[in-house]
């Protein structure tokens, strides 16, 4: 079933996080580059600071109760004592700050008179300090998207977090390369419209940032958080949307999920279900379930210090399993919710008997909870301390079901669905980064940056067309690709026609990707090397795609290896001449019969043996010349 975004009053706000292509990180001189290997590993534990515990924030409490060990892996050159939280931050990278100011100017945003670096508490281990350094650079402004004008809420400059490598529940491993890479965060006002129109907003902003030539490209260099709400719902933040086509699916999924939850809420309201009564009775049912033959129940019962707890939910009978849309039901939400507390065992009365839990056990639980006919129950099992946290979370989630959509943070799955990630943090936990003095921004600084404000996308495309003689399609494709910078570098340095370079880097790479090959295996350095060889006539034009193919298939690690693997050998003019003579001789009968008309056939046969070894045009010219002589004879 398709929902109408307009009638649901769908609103989508974007928060774009764009990595900058600065020489150094935001608060130290390390380079923004990925390490090939690590040379030092250390271990830390983060503690919530005191006022974190003062307010009841279940997520922080739970993270704290886990007291997880975090392991950090570092490499010289991409991380130093600053990333290890062993040295105070240096001054804010001038280059990064300038870029943020340029974006602010481009979006007509009001730059702060004085910028203050803040610490935003994050205790999942992704920041060695336990906080992310961030600063508000500008607020207000607008972005023009087709005929619409979208408001800008804020522009912040912040440090990227460390990259999660492994999480086995005991130890979390992070790589420090990415920690401290400058990010510009741009939050836009929520917009209405169809998902694909909304997507246009993100696309336009992305293109504007790229037109500045100051942003990083490639996978993971731009990340979007999306705030999605429908009428009568709450704002749901979705993290981890990497690609724009995924975004459309995420918006559609959330629209359905949130509307589904509202449908359930309306039914609960019709029944006059009382939120205050959710969880009015909680009983330990370990002894009842202990007799069950269920495999999943057995696994939990056999673990040490485990328990099963049943929660009575008055008035909810039939509502936890209700499915207004496919796969949208409260039961599923509860399953994901307990997953946050590392639990698997959650059952509810709408789905039982099942999973090896029998009628008898269900009846015993109902009796113990003294349930009425329209009551439901939820059972959660696992280690005692976690069941404690999870029960509280289940009760608050079911209470929220009566209101409809709870405000929470969800993460996007690759197939465009969303799953519960964590409750939304309360008021932002921010306090000043006292290690860095406030940074005044003067009118003269801003004036000096106006020339660097990126031109509009149309202008950039036009200038690419003009400068390199590209057609419009190719200019757009190369701009949107990950290869714009490398294209311009090669086009500026070699005599190879830019159209040829651009088409190799867009159409050919895309076609190889469609065949399932991995473009990330093809580095900028490899591309430059391949084109340099072409420029020196060491290889033929036809060889470029063959080299890319071997590299993207990972059948070769270097351009040299790829040349060998593809059987490309460059041959001298004499050798080529001999090769053509042989083909002519082998086909002399046909040549004699057809004369000049045999040229096409001969060209095909020569190419079959000389492809990649010599330039096609050169072969053609030489073959024609020889044929001319023959015919003249």
């Amino acid at each position, binding site marked *: 079933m398709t929902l109408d975004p307009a009638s649901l009053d769908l609103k989508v706000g974007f928060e774009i996080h764009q990595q900058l292509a600065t020489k150094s990180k935001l608060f130290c001189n390390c380079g923004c580059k990925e390490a090939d290997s690590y040379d030092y590993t*250390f*271990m*830390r*534990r*983060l*503690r*919530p*600071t*005191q*006022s*974190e*515990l*003062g307010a009841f924030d279940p997520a922080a409490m739970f993270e704290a109760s886990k007291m997880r060990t975090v392991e950090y892996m570092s490499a010289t050159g991409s991380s130093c*004592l600053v990333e*290890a*939280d*062993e*040295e*105070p931050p240096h001054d804010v990278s001038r280059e990064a700050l300038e870029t943020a100011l340029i974006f602010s100017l481009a979006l007509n945003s*009001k730059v*702060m*008179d*004085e*910028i*203050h670096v*803040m*610490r*935003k*508490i994050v*205790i999942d281990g992704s920041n*060695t*300090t*336990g*906080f992310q350094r*961030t*600063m*508000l650079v500008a607020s*207000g402004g607008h972005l023009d998207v087709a005929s619409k004008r979208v408001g800008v809420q*804020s522009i*912040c400059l912040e440090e990227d977090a460390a990259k999660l490598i492994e999480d086995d529940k005991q130890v979390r491993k992070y790589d420090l390369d990415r920690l401290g890479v400058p990010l510009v965060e741009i939050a836009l006002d929520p917009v209405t419209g169809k998902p694909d129109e909304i997507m246009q907003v993100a696309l336009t902003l992305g293109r504007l940032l790229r037109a500045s030539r100051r942003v990083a490209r490639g996978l993971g260099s731009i990340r979007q958080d999306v705030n999605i709400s429908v009428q009568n719902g709450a704002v749901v933040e979705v993290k981890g949307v990497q690609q724009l086509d995924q975004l459309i699916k995420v918006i559609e999924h959330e629209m359905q999920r949130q509307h589904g939850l509202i449908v359930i809420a309306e039914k609960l309201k019709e029944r006059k279900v009382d939120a205050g009564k959710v969880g009015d009775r909680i009983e330990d049912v370990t002894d009842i379930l202990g007799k069950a033959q269920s495999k999943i129940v057995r696994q939990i019962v056999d673990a040490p210090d485990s328990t099963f707890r049943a929660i009575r939910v008055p008035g909810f009978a039939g509502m936890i399993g209700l499915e207004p849309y496919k796969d949208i039901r409260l039961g599923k939400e509860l399953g994901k919710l307990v997953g946050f507390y590392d639990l698997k065992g959650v059952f509810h009365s709408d789905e039982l008997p099942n999973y090896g839990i029998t009628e008898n056990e269900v009846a015993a639980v109902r009796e113990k909870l003294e349930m009425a006919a329209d009551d439901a129950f939820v059972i959660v099992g696992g280690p005692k301390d976690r069941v404690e946290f999870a029960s509280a979370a289940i009760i608050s989630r079911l209470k929220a079901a009566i209101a409809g959509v709870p405000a929470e943070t969800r993460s996007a799955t690759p197939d465009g669905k969303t799953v519960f990630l964590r409750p939304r943090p309360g*008021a*932002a*936990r*921010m*306090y*000043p980064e*006292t290690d860095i*003095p*406030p940074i*005044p921004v003067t009118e003269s600084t801003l004036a000096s940056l106006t020339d660097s404000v990126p031109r509009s996308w149309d202008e950039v495309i036009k200038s690419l067309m003009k400068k390199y003689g590209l057609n419009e399609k190719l200019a757009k494709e190369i701009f949107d690709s990950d290869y714009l910078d490398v294209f311009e570098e090669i086009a500026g340095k070699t005599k190879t026609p830019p159209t040829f370079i651009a088409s190799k880097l867009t159409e050919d790479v895309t076609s190889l990707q469609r065949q399932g090959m991995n473009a990330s295996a093809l580095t900028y350095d490899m591309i430059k090397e391949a084109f340099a060889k072409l420029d020196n006539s060491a290889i033929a034009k036809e060889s470029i795609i063959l080299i890319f193919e071997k590299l993207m298939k990972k059948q070769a690690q270097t351009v040299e290896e790829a040349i060998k693997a593809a059987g490309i050998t460059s041959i001298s003019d004499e050798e080529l001449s001999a090769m053509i003579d042989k083909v002519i001789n082998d086909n002399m009968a046909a040549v004699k019969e057809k004369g000049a008309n045999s040229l096409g056939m001969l060209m095909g046969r020569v190419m079959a043996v000389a492809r990649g070894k010599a330039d096609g045009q050169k072969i053609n010219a030489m073959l024609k010349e020889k044929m001319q002589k023959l015919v003249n004879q």
Partner: protein
Amino acid sequence: MAKPDSGGYRGAGLQLLSRQGVSVGDSVRVATEDGEMFGVLMPRYELASDDYIVIKLKSGYNTGIQVGRIKSITKLQKNEAAATKAPEIIEDDRLPKIALISTGGTIASKIDYRTGGVRAALSASELYASVPELASHASIDPEVLLSEYSENLKPEHWTMIAEKVVEKIRTGKYRGIVVSHGTDTMHYTAAALSFALQNLPVPVVLVGAQRSSDRPSSDAALNLLGATIFAIKSEYAGVFVAMHAGTSDDAVACHIGTRVRKNHTSRRDAFESIDVTPVALVRNGAVEMQEKSMIELAKRSDDKIDAKTKFDDRVALLKYHPGFDPKLIEHIAAAGYKAIILEGTGLGHVSKECFLALQKAVDVGVIVCMTSQCIWGRVRMTVYDTGRDLLGIGVIPLSDMISETATVKAMWALANTKNVKKTMQESIANEISSSIPIEKA
């Protein structure tokens, strides 16, 4: 009416705020030519320009607004500091008692997220709240003695701290004493207490933090826990410094008070034992004595503490360098200093140009001692002519005593002993090691 807190504002900013009757913590509306901003007025760094006022926006971000651009600032709501209720702690009387003397530094602190202010959190319940594991090891009896950055501490403060430790020990209630301290001069205080408090019946453990305790990544909690566990479980008495053993949050090293030095500006493991290994590591709640430590430690005892807590600060620590002006020595002697600790080169040398000035100083009764700027290793002044000449002048070689320890010791010896020269050359509190292990500590 009480004068409103200026919150670090001066000049134009302060004038504007007092005119409008706005003080730090108030909710305000600030109007400029670009529109209005809403937020809470924040304090201003004392050193920052006085041209801006700072507000905390609803998003949590602070931002500075230029005073000249402000059309009006209106108070919307008065500062209402929310009263925070400390969690209730049920003390377990069966746990060993530890006295925690706080002298400064932020071993525990609380953030007020509304104003962004950080304040020390030093009541027992606040300590347990920030380091919950403490409550299962010890019953802590905290007392705030000083609130100073350690660079501001003077020998008179060492006396105060020493006397407070004596007072605590004499109650007989405590299994050990923990002294929280700013890290910059913690090794000086550790040396001072080592000389001032001899015959200690229990361990006295100094502890600090290289990352302030308002950060989730602070080393304060692990260090405090390590110091407390060592104070409870150590068989040995004496003065120790407990700090991170490495960059990881897994072990706390306990160092001899006279053999420890801050060797890094910012790392968690900045404190290192010199020429010896740390005496113990505290890991997973247990004390692991380090067998390789060649130091002889005194056991816990019921002895009476031998307290000599006075210091004479007429001691100068002089680092020799090429181009060193011998006149400095003359000036110091003329200024009435009683002792000079030289930090010489290598095995204990200064240029021959200094000989005359040194001779004059020695002749007027200044005690001149030699340590090495190499930090590790002993001075040995019989190897080269220069050393032998210096010995001839009357310069006293201090073996492998750390120069900072030597400075503190001279201050103590001048105030408490008759034969200062002799005292300087004897090992009183393990400040001289009998032999240095081959394996580098």
